[in-house]
Structures are given as C-alpha cells and as structure tokens.
C-alpha cells in the first residue's frame, strides 16, 4: 500500500443484505502507518433508527465527515419533523462529498438502511467524491476491501435470515482482515432488523 492516503490509518467495513435485515461490520484498528495507536476505533455511525453509515479512510476525515453529516441530518430532522430515510441520507452524503470534488475528503462510505414498514433493505456505497451507486447486495470499503469482496461473494446468498447473515458477514470480515496488516484488532457487527438492532463484538486475532 505504501504512501496511499487511504491506507494511512487502515480500517475496513462491510455490509450485506438479508431478508428484511442488514448487517454492517467494521474492524477496530486505528493506526498511523505501521504503528497501531488504538484498538477501539469503530467506524460505524448511526443517523436514524434504521440508518447507519460507515466511513473508512483517513481517520481525521472519518471523524469530520461523520460529524458534518450528523449536523446536516439533525437540521433535516428539525426542519422536516421526521426521521431520515436511507436514500435521503445517501443523497446528503454524496452531496457533502461532491461539494469537495476538487479538495476531497479521503473517505469511502457505506450507507445502509432498512424501511421498517416494508422491510425493504438498502445498501449504497460511495467513493471519496460521492459517486452514486445503486442499491447493492454486498459492499465493502477500506484497505482489506479487495480480500473481503471475494469472501463476501462466496458467503452471500439471497434472502438470508438474521443469524445466517451475521455468520456470513462476520466470517467474510474476519478472514479478510487476517490477510491485511492495516486492519483488524477485533470487529463489531451490527445486525439491523425491523424491531431491533443486535450489536456483537467479535473475537478475532489481536494483531
């Protein structure tokens, strides 16, 4: 990876769809090139009851963009007097990133959401200047994303229930980060269903 700005701090996130449920997972490493500084830096942020975003890339931009986005979503909720939908959140995020097209933030983003009434699931991903994607089954961002894409494609099957989805997501993430030195040190998985969110900390290699 060398001097690539997106691998300066390391980190990875993955999202996968199931039947009326979504899983989003990330590792917990925060490092500066080859030194690991902290092992509790989760990269998943909640913006609404069923909407989550994960940012991977330069850590300072992860924090800045997540907070700037929170600012905009707070204003939205105050003005509109209703909670955010996943596609609205995604549009806000891509707008925020594209505003800085010529001086971009160095984060790649994953937006996931669930519509509690219909059970419809959403996963969108974005590059660091806000390229729009369609609603996909599986998405991953971060330094180990190339490894996790392969594993995710293997373990993913359509219409998984919450338990199967959790296992598939966890195994794809854990095995992917084991091959990447810039991510790891534990993982967190959020499984989002219509009526509850289950947050699990995974046991992984601590290196």
């Amino acid at each position, binding site marked *: 990876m*060398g*001097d*690539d*700005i*997106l691998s*300066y701090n390391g980190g990875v996130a993955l999202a996968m769809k199931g039947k009326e449920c979504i899983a989003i997972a990330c590792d917990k490493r925060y490092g500066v090139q080859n030194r690991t500084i902290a092992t509790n830096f989760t990269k998943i942020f909640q913006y609404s*009851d*069923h909407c989550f975003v994960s940012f991977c*890339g330069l850590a300072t931009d992860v924090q800045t963009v997540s907070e*700037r986005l929170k*600012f*905009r979503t707070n204003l939205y909720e105050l003005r509109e007097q209703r909670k955010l939908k996943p596609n609205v959140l995604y549009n806000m995020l*891509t707008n925020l*990133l*594209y*505003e*800085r*097209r*010529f*001086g*971009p*933030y*160095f984060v*790649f983003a994953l937006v996931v959401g669930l519509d*509690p009434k219909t059970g419809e699931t959403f996963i969108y*991903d974005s*590059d*660091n*200047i*806000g*390229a*729009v*994607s*369609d609603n*996909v089954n599986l998405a991953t961002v971060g330094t180990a*994303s*190339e490894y996790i*894409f392969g594993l995710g494609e*293997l*373990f993913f*099957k359509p219409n998984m229930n919450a*338990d*199967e989805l*959790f*296992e*598939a997501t*966890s*195994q794809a993430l*854990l095995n992917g980060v084991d091959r990447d030195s810039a991510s790891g040190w*534990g993982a967190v998985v959020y499984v989002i269903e*219509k*009526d*509850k*969110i*289950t*947050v*699990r*900390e*995974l*046991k992984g290699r601590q290196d």
Partner: protein
Amino acid sequence: MSGLAFEQPTGGFVFDNCRRNELLLSNGVLPGKIHKTGTTIAAITYKDGVVIAADSRCTSGTIIFDDNVLKIHRLSDNIYALGAGTAADCDFQTRLLESQLELLKLNQDRQVRVATAVRKIQQHLFRYQGHLGAYLIIVGVDVTGSHIATVHPHGSIAFLPFVASGSGGYTSLSVIEDRFKENMTEEEAKQLARDALYASTTTDLYSGSRINMYVLTKEKLDKFLPYEVVGVRSDKQNDYTLAKGTTQVLSTNVKKIEFDIVNEKVKTTTGTHEAMELA
C-alpha cells in the same frame, strides 16, 4: 481554518480542503483511487428516433465495484445522457443539468431541445477547463428531430448520426461503422447497438456484465434493463452456508427499537360460513 461551527451550504463547490490536500500530495502521498465508470456507451439514430446502449460495470482501479450500474441518466422526458469517465462527475453534472432543464421547461412552457441541453453542459464544462471528467453522450428527440451529441470534458461537442464513447468506445465504433446505414428500422438499430456493445463488453476489461438499452422516439420510450446479460454468473458449486455459532462472539447487545402504535384494527372472522342459497 475559518473555524466555522455553522456551515451554510450555498451550493457549488467548496475548496476548504485544498490547502491540506496540496500539502499531503507534496509530501509524497498518493491520492486515493476514485471510481471511474470505464465503460462503453453508444447511441445510434434510426428512422423514428434513437437507440442508446450502455454496459453496466463500475471499476475502481481494476476492482469491479459495482456490476450493475445504470449509466443512462434522464435529463428530461425526451432527452437522456450517457456518462463515461469519472463516475461522480457524470452523476452530479447530469443531475444538475436535469434540474436546470426542468426549470427552463417550466419557464419557457415548451419541451426542451437537445441543442439547449448540449449548449448548457458544454459551457458549464468549459468553465472547469476539463477538470470535471465527464465524457457525455446527450441524445434526445425534440420538435426539430432526433439528435445525438457527444460532449468532452473540455467543452467540445459534435453532433453525429451515431457515436460510441468510453474505454470500449473504439471497439463499438468499429462495429457500428461497418453496418450503419441511414433510416434503419428499429429492429436493425437495436441489433446493431447490441452487437456493438457485445464486442466491447467482451474485449474491453473496463466494460462488462450487462447491456442496458433505451429506445427513444417522439411517441415512446422503451427501456430494456437489461437488454442482454453478457457476463452470466455461473452457479456456486457448493453451499457455503455457515452454521449458527461459527463465529465466536465476545459480547452481544440488543437494542429494541421503540414503535408507536398509531392505530389498531381488529378483524374477526366467523368460524363457519353459511352455504350459498341458490334460488
């Protein structure tokens, strides 16, 4: 840093990160890979209108980020744009143009013309001196007939009877050059577009998966999403379902989401049904 706690989005680009990014780049740091759409896009005029076709692959370096992207963007009911080059630029510039055209249509109370759309985007892209990497094909049918225009990032345009663009553009263009004739029928035009896209999805590594096609005439818009799946995925050889409990968990935290019950309806059904009386 201006230390703004309250940022008022005024629209347009914001350049506050530029100084920091310049510093990073001068220290030898490489910028990250942004999504390009690689791509093949093609448009052909025929007797009644235009046929437009695009592949569906989005790449970041050589990794396929998305296998099913729609590269055909609506600008108005009668005008569509195909985008190649930097994905974000294609998406946002066509969206911006779409809203401007909608306002123009409302203001002038007429259907928007292709030439207007092309002129607007051309002038906009020229202002940015090619830094917005949007290679667009604008197609549409208006009162003056059916038109295809190709727009380059620096602002040059060309109105042509057929055009293909993107990394697989040359391959497609050679197929179209071979068989194009004026006033083709719809079937001939669709077949030609399909063959042109097939050639580039199979040869160009940045194009692939599916061929999406729209047929646009004065009367109708037919959407074929997809027209053909070129990269058919084979079935998995094995079932990789993982048993519950495979992953070791350190802790679990379940957060219930509170729902407010807005209204409740109770429906009773009678146990037995009366038999129908036939007079």
